[in-house]
C-alpha cells in the first residue's frame, strides 16, 4: 500500500546532483510531494529531504539506486513515525481585516501564527507545523480574504539518527564501509545457516 515516506539524502554539494536525483523519481513516474535542499550537520555535505507517496518495496529499491550515484554518500527512508518534521507557511492578509474581525486574531493565536511584517495595507503571518495544521489555517483564513499563501518543503530530523559525523569519517577512509545494506535475509539467518 502506498504511504508517505521521507527520504533523506546526504550528498556532495555539486551542480547537477539535484537533477540526477530528481530524474530517478520522474523516470519511475513518481511525483515528488516536497523537496528541500539544505546544508547538513557536516560542513560541505548537503542534505536533501524528499517526500513521496509510494509502496515500501519501491522506495527500498529507489534508495539503493540513489545511493549508487557517485556523489551521494548515504540515503535513508523513513515513515512519518520515525521522524520529527515541520513545514513553514507564510500568509498575507489585509491588515484592515485583522483589525476589524476579532475572529481572525483569535484564529491566528489558536494556530500559533506570528506576525512577521505589519504594514498599513497588509500583514504577513508565519506558522510552522505539520501539513494538516497548516492546511487547516489556510482553509479558514480563505474566508477572510487571504491575499497570498506559500508553504515550504518539509524538513525532517530522523529520530534514530546519530548524525553524520561518524559516517563521514568512515567514508573518508580509503577502505570499504562496513555498512550492511539491509536485506530480508538478515532476519532469516536461522533458516539458512547451519554451519
Amino acid at each position, binding site marked *: 500500500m502506498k504511504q508517505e515516506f521521507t527520504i533523506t539524502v546526504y550528498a556532495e554539494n555539486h551542480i547537477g546532483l539535484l537533477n540526477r536525483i530528481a530524474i530517478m523519481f520522474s523516470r519511475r513516474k513518481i511525483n515528488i510531494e516536497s523537496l528541500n535542499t539544505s546544508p547538513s550537520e557536516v560542513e560541505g555535505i548537503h542534505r536533501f529531504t524528499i517526500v513521496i507517496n509510494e509502496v515500501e518495496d519501491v522506495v*527500498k*529499491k529507489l534508495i*539503493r539506486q540513489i545511493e549508487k550515484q*557517485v556523489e551521494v554518500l548515504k540515503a535513508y527512508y523513513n515513515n512519518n513515525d520515525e521522524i520529527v518534521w515541520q513545514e513553514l507557511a507564510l500568509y498575507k492578509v489585509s491588515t484592515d481585516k485583522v483589525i476589524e474581525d476579532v475572529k481572525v486574531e483569535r484564529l491566528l493565536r489558536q494556530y500559533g501564527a506570528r506576525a512577521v511584517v505589519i504594514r498599513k495595507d497588509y500583514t504577513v503571518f508565519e506558522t510552522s507545523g505539520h501539513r494538516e495544521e497548516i492546511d487547516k489555517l489556510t482553509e479558514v483564513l480563505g474566508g477572510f480574504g487571504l491575499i497570498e499563501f506559500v508553504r515550504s518543503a518539509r524538513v525532517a530530523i530522523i529520530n534514530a539518527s546519530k548524525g553524520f559525523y561518524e559516517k563521514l569519517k568512515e567514508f573518508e577512509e580509503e577502505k570499504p564501509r562496513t555498512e550492511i*545494506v539491509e536485506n*530480508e*535475509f538478515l532476519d532469516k539467518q536461522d533458516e*539458512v*545457516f547451519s554451519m
Partner: protein
Amino acid sequence: MSEAILSEKAKKSIKTKSEMTSVGKCAVGTEISGSQAVIEALFAEGVTDFFGYPGGAIMPIYDALYDYQDTINHILVRHEQGGIHAAQGYARTSGKVGVVFATSGPGATNLVTGLADAQIDSTPVVCITGQVFAHLLGTDAFQETDVINITTPITKWNYQVTDANEIPSVLAKAFYIAKSGRPGPVLIDITKNAQVQKFTYPGYKPCTHIRSYRPKPIVRKEYIQAAAELINKAERPFVLLGQGVILGNAENEFRAFIEKGGLPTAWTVLGLSALPTDHPLNVGMLGMHGNYGPNVLTNECDVLIAVGMRFDDRVTGRLDKYAKQAKIIHLDIDPAEIDKNVHATVPVWGDCKETLPLITSLLKNKQHENWLNKFKELRKQEEEVVITPELHPDGDMMTMGEVFNVLNDLTKGDAVIVTDVGQHQMVSCRYAKFTQSRSNVTSGGLGTMGFALPSAIGAKFGAPQRNVIAVIGDGGFQMTLQELGTIMQFNVDVKIIILNNHFLGMVRQWQQLFHDKRYSFVNITSPDFVALAKAYSIDGKSISKRENLRSALQEMLNHNGSYLLEIMVGKENNVFPMVPQGCGVAEIRLK
C-alpha cells in the same frame, strides 16, 4: 612530472625523444593549456588508441593532439555514434577504458545512443566533449546543447569543466569511475575557454578514492558461508553466468567454482564466451531465444546461483513464473541489483573475483550427473526440432545457423564475433563457438541496431592479434555503414558478414507470430553491398548457394585486410526456441 605517474610508454618516449618538450610529457610546474592537460591525462592513463571527430568547440584539444600523433593513435570515425560504439568495442575486447572525443551540440548528441548502450551494458567509456565558451552557456550559442543534462540519466557520472585547473583531477576521476566497481560511461564536457586557458601544470595523479563513491561493497563472511551451505545441500543447483564474470576478470575463478561443485551453467548474452562453449558444464544460453533445457530447468532447479547478472526481463520472462521453487543466491558488485527483479535468498555482495574463490573453498567436490543429464535430454529434443534443421537444412535457401556452423569449423572458435541486433544476433549467440573470453561483442541491454560495424573497428584495435568478424543484418548494416570509411582510411582488418534476408527479420518474425503476418514496414531494400564496399576499396563477394559457403568464408578469412561477404539467407526463417512475451521461461516454444 614525477616518475611514478609516467606510463611505460611515456618513459620510453621520453628516453627516445628527450629533445621534445611537449610530445609525450609536459613538465610539472610549466604553463600549459587545458587542452594539453587533456592529452596528458590520456597519456598517463595508458590510452593508446581512441576515437573521435573534431568540430568547432573541441578544436583546441585537437590542436594539442597534433603534437601527440606519434604517441597516441586517434582514429577518425565518420560519425560520433560510430566513435562511441568503437570505444565500446575497444573496451569489450581489451578490458581497458574506451575513449571518444566529440564536439559540442550535434557532436555530443550523437553520442547519446552509445552512452545509453554503455550504461545498460556496464561498459567503461570516457567521452570528452567540447562545449562553447563558459560565458556563452545558456545563450543558445552556435552548437550549444545542454549536454550534461541530456546525458545525466545515461552516464555513471558526468561533469562540466569551465576552468583548466580542474582538468587533471576531473579526468583522473573520470577514468577511475568509468573502470572501477560496476563499470560505466562517463562524460566530461569542457568549455572552450578552459581548453585554451593556460595554467601551471600540477602533474597527473590517478584517482584511487572518492569519499562519496564505494566501487565495491565489503564481502561478508556469513553470506559466503550461507551460499556455500546452500550449494552443498543442493540436489539440482543451476548457475547463471553474466557479464560480471568478464568485467571482473574472474573467468578462472568461475571455472574453478563450477568445476568443484559440478554445477551446470547457462549464460546470458553478455556472459557468453566467459566459459568455453565445449566445457562439459556449459548447458547453453538463457532467455527468450536461449536453449530449451536452461529455460525449462530454471523452474526445476532447487538452488539458482546468479553470478554477475541482473535478471533482465529477456532472461526471466514473466517474473511471477520465474524460479519460484528455488532458493536464489545472487552474486553482484552492485548492491542495487540485489532484490531488484528477483528476490535473493542469499545476497553475496562484492567483486566475484573475490567472492567466488571464497565460496569455492567451502564447497564439497560434487557431481550432479542425473541433473546434468536432464539438460542433455532436453538438449536432444531441441536438437531434433530446432538445431539440426537450422544447422543442416533441407531447403534450398541457406539458414543463418549453417553459416555459423561452417564458420565455427574454420575459426575453431578463436575469433572475436561482433554482432548487431536482431535474428542474426540471437543465432550467433546460440551457435557461434568460443574458446576464450571477451570474444562476443554485442549490444545486449539496449539492443542498438547499427552497433556492430563501428564496434568491430574498436574491437580490432582492442585485440589487434585476433580475428574480428562482424556479423550484421541487412537492416543494421545500413544504420552505420558510413564507418566503412574508417575501415578504409585506417586499414582496419575486420571481416564483415552481412546475413541478408531482405527483411527486418526479428520484427517480421514477431509480426508473423503475434500480428497475423501483417508485415508492416519490415520489407527492406538494400544497395549492392559488394559494390558499396568496393567504393571504399574493400574487397567482397555475395553468395546465395550453399556449395559456395565454405569456400567463400575461407576466402574471407584468408583475405589480407578487411573484407565484406554478403550471404543470402532464407527470407522467412524464424529464430527458435522462443519464450513468448508475457510467458514464463518454462513455457518456451520449440516451434
